[in-house]
């Protein structure tokens, strides 16, 4: 491990976070509801730590390899959360561990909150919380490769370590150009959504908070009741459509711009994703008739709640904790699957689920015809065997973390459903689960150690597990 190189990159990352706090500082100045000083102190601390590091830790060797890329991704995200938690702590909104949980939940676009009285928080802090969704959604390191290629060095180790999905799909030959295209699409979609929400009658501040929450598929709201507070069909529809859009692979939007319509229709993952969403919405709507009385109302709530868990956003217009068991079970499965690779969403990713299904079906057929050579294909291209086994290993690790997370949460003495779904909601970066952590509940009452465990589970889920796991593996720290 090239420690100096990693430390100097982390220093630059921290400086970048201080810069990213400036919009929130501006908002707090504008509203003047008492959190300006806490932002100034936080930015001061971040500068005091990052500037000396940048100045004194210099590395002659700028070449980053996989090991360094993973370490910068893993440590970088922990660092961002650790310092991002400062404004809330300094302001006195909650203790440090809760603030760390809250901001980790923000950066990882989970949206799980420790606050019961969200509306009592000042605007600057609300903005910062939601802005971390927006940054974390597309990725901090992707952002740095777009604008500050000196941090990333050559090659794609950094961006790849951060990108959701089995592979980082480049849109242009140069990594920097790819990252710029991604951020451009991301920004345009976010602004479009904010405008749509404004037109639908949402106040300006709320419109941006919810656009950030949707774009990053995070789910922080500035209202105690989340989207249910507005009780508007138009707002429901706008947000559910955008949630589904942000769950799609961003390469598809690029194909739309370059008029490669064939490529969009051919995309197997997107087709399964959309199909799964439509079928789940209809099934749950039918199941909900007995709760809401008529199909249109049932459809309205199902049409919002299904995209919110599929895209792992976590907004809510209804308490699905009170829904019938079939609907709840289906929602749980969708929580595990998540959305498309290359989106801002979490979960296992649909493409992995498709590959696992194909793998399973091959094993079954293999039992009947042991000598038949069977190649697994995706969109007409055969998949290499090692990428299939990688998916298998990923799935296993995912489940292991899920189970151990549930075990850790259960130490707090909650029921099985709460423990299990709290772990799942954090690992898949959704936010709300079932039981005590359902859409109308929150994570306030968990003990500090459990909050730390859940924070690391969120990071593991966002970074696709391995960058976080290697931080705990001694081999990563040995000299090469």
């Amino acid at each position, binding site marked *: 491990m090239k420690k100096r190189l990693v430390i100097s990159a982390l220093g630059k990352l921290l400086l970048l976070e201080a810069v990213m706090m400036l919009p929130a500082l501006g908002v707090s100045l504008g509203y003047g509801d008492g959190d300006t000083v806490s932002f100034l102190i936080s930015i001061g601390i971040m500068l005091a730590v990052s500037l000396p590091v940048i100045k004194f830790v210099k590395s002659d060797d700028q070449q980053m*390899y996989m090991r360094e890329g993973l370490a910068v991704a893993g440590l970088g995200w922990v660092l961002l959360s650790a310092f991002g938690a400062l404004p809330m702590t300094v302001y006195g909104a909650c203790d440090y561990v809760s603030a760390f949980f809250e901001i980790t939940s923000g950066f990882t676009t989970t949206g799980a909150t420790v606050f019961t009285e969200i509306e009592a928080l000042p605007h600057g802090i609300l903005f910062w919380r939601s802005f971390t969704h927006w940054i974390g959604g597309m990725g901090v390191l992707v952002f740095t490769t777009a604008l500050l290629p000196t941090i990333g060095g*050559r*090659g*794609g180790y950094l961006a790849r370590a951060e990108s959701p999905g089995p592979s980082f799909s480049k849109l242009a*030959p*140069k990594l920097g150009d790819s990252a710029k295209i991604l951020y451009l699409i991301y920004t345009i979609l976010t602004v479009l959504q904010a405008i749509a929400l404004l037109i639908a009658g949402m106040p300006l501040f709320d419109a941006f908070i919810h656009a950030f929450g949707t774009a990053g598929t995070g789910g922080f709201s500035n209202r105690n009741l989340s989207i249910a507070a507005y009780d508007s069909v138009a707002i429901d529809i706008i947000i559910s459509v955008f949630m589904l859009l942000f769950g799609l692979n961003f390469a598809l939007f690029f194909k739309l711009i370059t008029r490669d319509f064939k490529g969009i229709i051919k995309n197997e993952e997107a087709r399964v994703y959309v199909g799964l969403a439509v079928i789940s919405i209809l099934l749950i709507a039918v199941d909900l008739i007995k709760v809401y009385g008529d199909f249109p109302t049932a459809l309205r709530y199902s049409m919002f709640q299904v995209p919110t868990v599929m895209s792992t956003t976590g907004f809510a217009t209804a308490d699905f904790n009170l829904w019938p068991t079939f609907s709840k079970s289906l929602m749980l499965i969708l929580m595990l699957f998540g959305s498309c690779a290359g989106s801002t969403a979490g979960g296992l990713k649909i493409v992995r689920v498709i590959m696992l299904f194909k793998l399973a079906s091959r094993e079954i057929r293999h039992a009947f015809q042991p000598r038949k050579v069977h190649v697994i294909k995706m969109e007409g291209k055969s998949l290499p065997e090692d990428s299939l086994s990688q998916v298998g290993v990923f799935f296993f690790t995912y489940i292991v973390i899920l189970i151990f997370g549930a075990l850790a949460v259960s130490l707090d003495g909650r029921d099985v459903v709460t423990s299990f779904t709290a772990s799942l909601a954090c690992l898949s970066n959704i936010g709300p689960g079932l039981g005590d952590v359902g859409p109308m509940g929150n994570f306030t009452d968990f003990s500090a150690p459990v909050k730390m465990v859940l924070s690391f589970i969120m990071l593991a889920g966002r970074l696709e597990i391995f960058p976080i796991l290697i931080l705990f593996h001694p081999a990563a720290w040995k000299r090469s």
Partner: protein
Amino acid sequence: MRIIIVGCGKMGLLLAERLIAEKHDVTLIDRDEAVLEHAMDTLDALTIKGNGVSVATLQEADIKHTDIVIATTVSDETNMLCCLTSKLQGAKYTIARIRDPEYLTSLHFITKELFINYVVNPERATAREISRMLRLPFAASIETFARGRVEMVEIRATGREPFVEIPLKDLYKKHSSLPRVLFCAIERSGRAIIPKGDFIIHSGDKVFIASDTPTISAFFKAMGKDTRGVHDAMIVGGSRIAYYLAQLLQDSGVKTTIIENKPHKARWLSEELKDATIIQGDGTDQQLLLSEGLSDAQSFITLTDRDEENLMAGMYASRHTKGKVIVKSNRTSYSELLKDMGLESIISPTQIACNIVLRTVRARANADGTTVERMYSLIGGNAEALEFIPRAGASYLGIPLKNLKIHENVLVAVIVRSGHVLVPFGDDTIEADDHVVIITKEMGIVDLGDVIGRE
């Protein structure tokens, strides 16, 4: 520019690295996933797995909006077909690597019918370079500019030359009879230096000296060097380079001996090359080398397909002969090490071919302005020598050099005006249709105007 490279061999990867450094958008196509994965780790390029001849793969690489396709797969035929398909699919310019001597005679017809805009033959280009090196055996390398009128010679300073341990500006005050040459670049412990008047050359430095061809000869003659070319050449390895080289040497009357181990290859060479002596045997066998007259050989060149064999044989030969030893090795990064072991002249066909392609790409990148006529990379790629022909209308024409703004680390080395070579001073000017040779540490220059402008 948008460039597709088909085939990620040594040449493809080196080209990609250099082109990316020159800010081009590069897409790599190869059939081997492992090679692509390695490329993706180290290069900022798009990689596509597939066959470079298939339309689907080329379309995936966005062939319609591609400026240049470079085909460098191992097979000449694939490269040709790739160029044809690419051109039909909308690529603007195609470059193919074609190596087989059998295609040489029909090359004109092939390139015309298959829409290949440029053919690069690394082996033939390497053979040409070696034959040039054999003309001045004491030099580590020789590059020519302005259609052979200007030569740039690379030599290692041993300490006995008049130009060492003296500020360059005082050299001609002390040795007024010495023919006027220009010291254009120095390599000192792997770093490139473009010298100013107060620079002092030490023993052990590599020195690049340029002037017109007769003056260069006179300069080295005055220093007591033998400026006659070699009369015989001993070549180990009957590769394609050996074949091309033997042909070139044959024409200039150099007695050539080729040692080749494989009987069928030795036989083929013997059929094709009438004046050369072909010995069938192991070129790394010391007894064989001595019995074939290694001790008296004026030049010894190792050209087998294995770099390691070339280096071993080269090192052995440099102990047993006073003649010129040239070694083929594509691993140029070790050249510093090899110099310590007495091997001065290392040539890399990959590097030579890359330079040719890069020159062509730069000429395309700047199709309306001055084009790069020649390009050599010096000192392990840390400096470049470039030749331009400025067209009428450029802003810097007719202005004395001392009044022009010339970038740091750029040296206007030689100007050739209507066949006349001059080593420029502050009062000289650049005129339209001159051949201008510059030495620079800036990479990727496509136009003289990039580095020279009005105040």
